[in-house]
C-alpha cells in the first residue's frame, strides 16, 4: 500500500474505533445474549417455530412494513415525477417541502397525527360536520394509524432514490418514443417506468428495511394494541425481563436485513441509489 493511502486510512481510524467500541461491540454483546440466556443454546430460536406470539409479531411487522412500503413508493414516485418535470426553481421548493418533515422529531409528528386522527380529532370532527359519517371512525390506535404515521415518515426516503434515477433519464428518450408512435401513456410505461425502476427498487428496499425497525411511531399510533417487532423487543427486555427472547428477535432482524442488503447490493449499485454517479 502506498504511504498516502495509509495516511487516509489513519484518518478514518478514530471514527472506526468509536463505532467499534460504542456501537458494534455493544450490539454484538446484546446479540450473544440471545444464545446464552436463560441457558446456552438455541432455545430462544426454537420459539420462532413454536410460539404463536412471536410469529404474530413478525407477521404484523412484515404486513405493516409491506403496506407502508407500497403506499410510500406510490406517493414517492408521483412526487419524484412531478419534481423531475418541474422548472429548476420549482424543484427547489418541492425538495424543501419533501425534506422539511425530516427535520421534525418523529415524536412530535406521531403526537400530531394522534391529535388529528383521534375520535375527537380534526379529521373525525370535520367529516362529522360535513355529514359524511355519523359516528367517529377508528383512525388511530390500530394498524391504520400506524401506517399513516409511517408512510408520512417514509415518503422522503422513497422520493430521494427515485428522484436520483429519474434525473438520469434523458428527456429526449420520451420525445423519441412519442415520435416513433407511442402515446404519452405508452411512452411512460415502456420507457420512463423501466428506466426509473432501479430507483423504485432501491427506494422499496430502503423503506421496507426502515419500516421493520420502527419503534416510536407504532408505539404511539398503535396505542399498545398493535405490536411491531421493535416494541415487542422492548417489552421483552424492559417489562418482562426476558432478555434472551428479546435479543433473539433483534438478532433475527439484523441478520434478515443484512441478508436482504447483501442480495440487493448484487442487483443494484448501492452508491448510485443515493445519487452518486458510478
Amino acid at each position, binding site marked *: 500500500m502506498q504511504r498516502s493511502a495509509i495516511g487516509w486510512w489513519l484518518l478514518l481510524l478514530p471514527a472506526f474505533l468509536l463505532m467499534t467500541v460504542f456501537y458494534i461491540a455493544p450490539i454484538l454483546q446484546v446479540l450473544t445474549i440471545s444464545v446464552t440466556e436463560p441457558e446456552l443454546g438455541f432455545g430462544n430460536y426454537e420459539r420462532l417455530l413454536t410460539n404463536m406470539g412471536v410469529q404474530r409479531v413478525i407477521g404484523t411487522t412484515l404486513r405493516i412494513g409491506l403496506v407502508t412500503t407500497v403506499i410510500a413508493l406510490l406517493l414517492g414516485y408521483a412526487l419524484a415525477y412531478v419534481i423531475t418535470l418541474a422548472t429548476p426553481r420549482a424543484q427547489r421548493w418541492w425538495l424543501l417541502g419533501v425534506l422539511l418533515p425530516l427535520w421534525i422529531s418523529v415524536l412530535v409528528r406521531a403526537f400530531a397525527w394522534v391529535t388529528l386522527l383521534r375520535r375527537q380529532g380534526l379529521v373525525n370532527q370535520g367529516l362529522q360536520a360535513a355529514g359524511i359519517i355519523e359516528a367517529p371512525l377508528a383512525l388511530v390506535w390500530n394498524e391504520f394509524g400506524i401506517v399513516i404515521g409511517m408512510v408520512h415518515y417514509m415518503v422522503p426516503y422513497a422520493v430521494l432514490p427515485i428522484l436520483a434515477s429519474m434525473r438520469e433519464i*434523458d428527456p*429526449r*428518450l420520451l*420525445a*423519441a*418514443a*412519442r*415520435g*416513433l*408512435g*407511442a*402515446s404519452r401513456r*405508452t411512452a411512460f410505461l*415502456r*420507457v420512463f417506468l*423501466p*428506466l426509473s425502476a432501479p430507483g423504485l427498487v432501491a427506494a422499496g428496499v430502503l423503506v421496507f428495511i426502515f419500516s421493520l425497525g420502527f419503534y416510536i411511531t407504532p408505539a404511539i399510533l398503535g396505542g399498545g394494541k398493535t405490536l411491531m417487532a421493535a416494541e415487542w423487543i422492548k417489552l421483552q427486555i424492559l417489562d418482562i425481563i426476558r432478555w434472551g427472547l428479546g435479543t433473539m428477535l433483534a438478532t433475527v432482524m439484523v441478520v434478515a436485513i443484512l441478508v436482504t442488503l447483501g442480495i440487493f447490493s448484487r442487483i443494484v449499485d448501492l452508491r448510485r441509489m443515493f445519487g452518486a454517479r458510478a
Partner: protein
Amino acid sequence: MTIAGFVAPSAGMVLLDGSDITPLPPERRDFGMVFQGYALFPHMTVAENVAFPLRVRGLSRADRDAKVRAALDLVQLDRFADRRPSQLSGGQQQRVALARALVFDPALLLLDEPLSALDKKLRAELQEELKALHRRVGRTFVNVTHDQDEALSLSDQVAILNHGRLIQLGAPEALYEQPRTRFVADFLGKSNFLQGLVQESHLGGLRVQSGATTLVQQAPRALRPVAGSPALLSLRPEKIALLAAGETAENMVEGHIAAWSYLGAGFLLVVRTADLGEIRVTLPSWRAPIAPAEGLAVRLGWSADAAVPVLDDAA
C-alpha cells in the same frame, strides 16, 4: 419540431401529400425520426429498440420479428441484434436509430441534427453512410442541420431557415451559385460582400460604383436593383483570379496581401484594397502563380458573371 408535431406552428399548415396534418400529435403522424444523439432506449437491446415502433402499433410477434430482421439487414446490423446500445460504436448506433425509424415504413424520415454532436471525421463517415442508405431506401429524408457542408453534400433540396423563416429553397448548386440574400450566401460556403451604389441598371447588367472603383455585374431582371439604389454583391473567394502583369478582366482591383494561410489544397489570401475593403481569395496551392507573402502587391480580377447581387438581410 413543427414537422414532427412537438411544436404547433404560429401560422400556416403542415401538409403531407396534400392533406393537412397540423393538428395531429407526434405519435399519429407516422414519421420515422432520428434524434440528436440518437435517443436509443438504453434498457432495450438493439432488436427491442427497432421493434419499439412496431410494438406500440400493436403488431403481432411474428410480423415484428420479420420486420425487425429486415430492417437490421438493411443497415447491416443483424449480428448485433442482442447487444445493448451502450455496447455499440457511434456509427452502429446511428444505424440502429435509422433502422428503428424505418422499420414501420414511414411516409417520411425526419433527422433532427443527428450528427451534430460528433467529431468531424466520424461525421463525414456517417454522412456517406446516410447518403448510401438514402439511395437504398428511396424515401424522403428531411435532415435538419447547422452544418453547411452536410446540407450541400447530402441534399437534393435545401431549405434555408433563419429565425424560423424560410429564406430560400432550392437545389444545393442553385443555392450556392444563386443565393438570394446575404444570409444564404454567408451560410453556404464563404463569400465576400461588396457594397456600392448602382450607377446604371439595364439589360446587360449593372454598373456599381464603390469608391473610385467601378464594377460591372450581370444580373437577371428579377434581381436587378434600380439605378441610384445601394447594391450588395456576393463574390465567392474561388472565383477571383490573381492577374499576371498585362492580364485583364472585366473587374479589376489592386491591393496587397494583409494575411494568408496555407490550407493544404490551397491558399487563403486576405487582400486589402482601397475601395472594397478586405477581399478573401482562395487559390490552389499546386503550381500557385505566386508565393504568398504579407505586404505583397497583387491585382485581383473577376468576370461580370462571377458575383451575384443579393439582398442585404443581415441585421
